[in-house]
């Protein structure tokens, strides 16, 4: 079988997850998940409960 190219290998390793907790790969996954949860505009997901712009907008309001 032909070896996977680097981007495909990264994708495959993210899908076929074999890393332990407290590894740098785990940290990157956690950061990606938190970024999705906090940075995705609620309108995009049509979230029925969201009435605000979220923690990022809340943090930015302190800087204004």
């Amino acid at each position, binding site marked *: 079988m032909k070896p996977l190219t680097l981007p495909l290998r990264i994708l495959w390793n993210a*899908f*076929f*997850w*074999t890393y332990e*907790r*407290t*590894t*740098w790969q*785990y*940290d990157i*996954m*956690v*950061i990606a*998940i*938190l970024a*999705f*949860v*906090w940075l*995705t505009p*609620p309108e995009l*997901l*049509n*979230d*029925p*409960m*969201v*009435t*605000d712009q*979220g*923690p990022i907008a809340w943090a930015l309001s302190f800087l204004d």
Partner: protein
Amino acid sequence: MTFTGLIGYLCMFPLRAIIAACVALRIHPNILTFLGVLINVAAAWALGQAHFITAGVIMIVANIFDFIDGKVARELNAETKFGGFWDSVIDRFSDIALFLGLIYLYSTRGRTDYVMITAITMMFAIMTSYTRARAESLIAKCKVGFMERPERIVLFMIGAFTNRMGAVMWVIGVLSVFTVADRIIYTYRELRDAPPEPAA
């Protein structure tokens, strides 16, 4: 030390004190497990009422019980096979309770789309546990896939405290599908590559 390792290390300080208190009071670990599910039902009720911050606080308390029961059992020398079984079964009830709280909430808001997303996420969360349990009756270990119970619980808390339950349901759902697929692929490969059993 990694970022998640540091968070785990810091969380262990208060938990060690709670474990020591439970050991000193000689509270049976199975009782701690059961208290955990009861408190999780309260968290589910709070989710159902859209009291997300309250639900988040209750989830923290409930999951302290979930987390320490095994450690208290070890300290008290009270580890039993039944304790492990009881813990796994009760954990599934806790999981389902939280999802049902959200399903109730979305149904009262008339949001069939999120009722379905949450229901499908619940199905794959349960299948994540089932695939591992069933696989480990055939192979030695099947600990692959990202979205296990601790990740689910932490995400529930993040969703509750920051009012991002919709995004959290998507993340848990998609990553649970991957986790179930990982476990099926891993078990298939392990069984395919295993040496044939000698004939009886």
